[in-house]
């Protein structure tokens, strides 16, 4: 079943994170509609936890994380899956 | 080598011929001849005729006038126009000038070339709206907070209102400073013959446009010779940043950097003080072998002429006149030379706190007595008072 669903998907979501810009506000994680990202337990050099792309399979590439992020630290987009 | 590009006046703005107009109208014509194509103003007596004429003339010359909601708005609106590429001015008097102070500082900090015309009236506060004074001379230099330098020019006649406001625009462009054109109600409302020459006889300075390309251009990299940076305007692809914060050569804020702040503020002052000899402008009359020197500016220098005549006629006292046209920076060396020769320097001016006289005192450093001859304004000196001061000083 899962395989069939994966086959149907022609697009996948991609999330790019710049940990050094992150200030750990958690808005991206809180408002991600599918729970594709979560806060890392790691710290950046300023001492903030930053998001990580923990569930790529869930990501639809809607890009909301990148629109919300006040620090320009995360960016999500949709990419065509090559056959 | 600093590149200053001189050209001649755009004929569209030049009303060549002889006119019978007052100083305010003449100042407007001078501004148009100098290439001023934008003015923002707010009505205030006794300056309003300058912008009234500008509002009538500019649609035909090609440019813009806007009456803003207050002087604060006017004094920043014109700077927007400058960064869009035009030469611009605002015109006001005492209370409006007080409101403009923050933006004089902004122009100084951002090195925005522009002209502030102040047709002085008596203060403090609302004071004497319809009558003259020269009580804003220190304010024009120091009114905005922090250290900066500016240039003050003071005309004595309508003809000079025309001619010297052209100097004001030219100096603003050369040194990228706000230049204060310090008129007074008397000169502003005095109607006389004003001769406007052919455009090709009017020398005008072009903006110091950079020859660098976007990417290699640094907005606040000074010319090593005269310490003035080169300019760009909005819309040309430079993607530059302008801020009133202390900034580095890129124009980026560096408001917590002591060294950058020190270097910037020193340069803003030194570009005037080190180039002062190129800015000075004054006129001397009978100073070769005078015993008493009258040192004045604007309408007071003109009134002093009669006092000087009286002293010569009645007592045979040799009196010279030293008239500052550029009131700041001052030609210190020449004033010192004269101070060493004369018995006293008398400084008539329309303020009672020796606003210019105290500068002379500082320069002269006791070489001879400096006698402030203040008048509170709302009128001009009686020439008899100047005569009496001369007689007293010559004793």
């Amino acid at each position, binding site marked *: 079943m899962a395989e069939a669903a994966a086959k149907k998907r022609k697009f996948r979501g991609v999330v790019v994170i710049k940990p050094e810009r992150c200030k750990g506000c958690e808005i991206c994680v809180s408002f991600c509609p599918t729970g594709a990202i979560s806060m890392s337990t790691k710290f950046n050099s300023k001492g903030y936890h930053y998001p990580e792309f923990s569930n790529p399979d869930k990501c639809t590439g809607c890009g909301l994380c990148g629109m919300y992020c006040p620090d320009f630290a995360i960016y999500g987009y949709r990419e065509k899956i090559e056959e | 080598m600093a590149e200053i590009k001189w050209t001649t006046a755009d004929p569209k703005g030049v009303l060549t011929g002889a006119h019978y107009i007052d100083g305010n109208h003449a100042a407007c014509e001078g501004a148009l001849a100098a290439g001023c194509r934008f003015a923002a103003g707010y009505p205030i007596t006794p300056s309003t005729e300058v912008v009234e004429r500008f509002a009538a003339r500019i649609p035909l010359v090609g440019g813009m006038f806007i009456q803003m909601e207050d002087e604060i708005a006017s004094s*920043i609106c014109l700077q927007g126009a400058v960064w869009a590429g035009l030469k611009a001015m605002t015109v006001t008097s005492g209370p409006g000038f007080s409101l403009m102070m923050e933006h004089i500082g902004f122009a100084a900090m951002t090195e925005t070339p522009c002209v502030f015309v102040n047709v002085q009236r008596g203060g403090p506060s609302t004071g004497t709206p319809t009558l003259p004074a020269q009580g804003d001379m220190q304010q024009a230099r120091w009114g905005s907070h922090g250290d900066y330098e500016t240039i003050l020019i003071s005309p004595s006649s309508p003809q000079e209102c025309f001619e010297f406001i052209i100097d004001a625009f030219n100096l603003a462009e050369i040194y990228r400073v706000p230049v204060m054109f310090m008129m007074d109600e008397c000169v502003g409302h005095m109607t006389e013959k004003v001769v406007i020459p052919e455009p090709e006889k009017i020398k005008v300075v072009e903006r110091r446009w950079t020859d660098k390309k976007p990417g290699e251009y640094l907005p606040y990299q000074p010319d090593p010779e005269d310490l003035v940076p080169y300019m760009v305007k909005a819309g040309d692809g430079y993607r530059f*940043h302008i801020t009133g914060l202390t900034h580095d050569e890129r124009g980026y804020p560096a408001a917590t950097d002591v060294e950058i702040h020190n270097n910037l503020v020193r340069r803003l002052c030194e570009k005037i003080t080190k180039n002062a000899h190129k800015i000075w402008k004054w006129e001397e009359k009978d100073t070769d072998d005078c015993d008493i020197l009258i040192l004045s500016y604007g309408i007071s220098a003109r009134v002093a002429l009669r006092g000087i005549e009286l002293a010569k006629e009645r007592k045979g006292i040799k009196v010279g006149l030293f008239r500052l046209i550029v009131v700041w920076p001052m030609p210190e060396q020449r004033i010192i030379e004269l101070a060493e020769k004369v018995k006293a320097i008398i400084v008539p001016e329309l303020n009672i706190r020796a606003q210019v006289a105290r500068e002379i005192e500082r320069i002269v450093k006791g070489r001879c007595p400096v006698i402030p001859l203040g008048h509170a304004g709302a009128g001009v000196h009686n020439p008899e008072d100047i005569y009496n001061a001369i007689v007293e000083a010559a004793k």
Partner: protein
Amino acid sequence: MSTTLRENPVEQFLRTDRMPHIWCPGCGIGTSVNCFARAVLECGIDLDKLCIVSGIGCTGRVAGYLRLDSFHTTHGRAIPFATGLKLANPDLHVVVYSGDGDLAAIGGNHLIHAARRNIDITVICVNNFNYGMTGGQVAPTTHHEKVATTTPYGDPEYPFNLPDLAASCGAVFVARWTTYHVVQLTKTLVKALNKKGFSFVEILAPCPTLYLRRNKLGTSVDLMKYFKEKSVIKHGANTKEVGLETYDKEIIVGEFVDIDKPDYLDNYNEIMKKRLGDKFQPWGR
């Protein structure tokens, strides 16, 4: 993965050598910048002709972070500076990007007059309900009875209804969103940027460090959730009814005003042409 990772479209707008910016964690200003950048790209505006003018304050720093011709002016005076810029070169696309204190308190007079004149600029007002840069003082947008450092026992005043203020003064496009409504906000900014005349967009944004903390309203995430719950979208709403007097009131968001009328320069050129005839060359058209 065969492809290289794409860049956030906001990157090309940023002076990346100045990142990270000074805004606090969770501050809404950066979110508004994301929407603005996407809106500008969608409009297809020539970035070389786009000017950003800011006043002073947290939002006043936007100009300094955007890689455009950008002007960080004096407190409250972004609009008159923008007026000079636009009138001197009408080919420029001029956007004022500033905060509520800057635009509505010290700059309030300029806001109403620019709207009245219908100067062709877009004003983006990020409203975080207090003065952030100076440490959280009361603003003309602070909710009645909420706490600020200069109203430590609660604000006795009532806040401005900014959309109504702009609309009643003649703005041709007036809208309000919150930083929760990023998609809608982006679409609205496209309209505002394309609109000829004075357009005004208010963006409600969290100030977690000062306003939320002092008033015990939680984190930015909490406020965003609050925005989500309290907001009611009412396009075309009567602006008289969109005031935010108290914190618990519903937040009416949407595009309230979208009318057409000649801008300042249209009127100027028409009147001059009428009176001066062929002697007059239309300015900037």
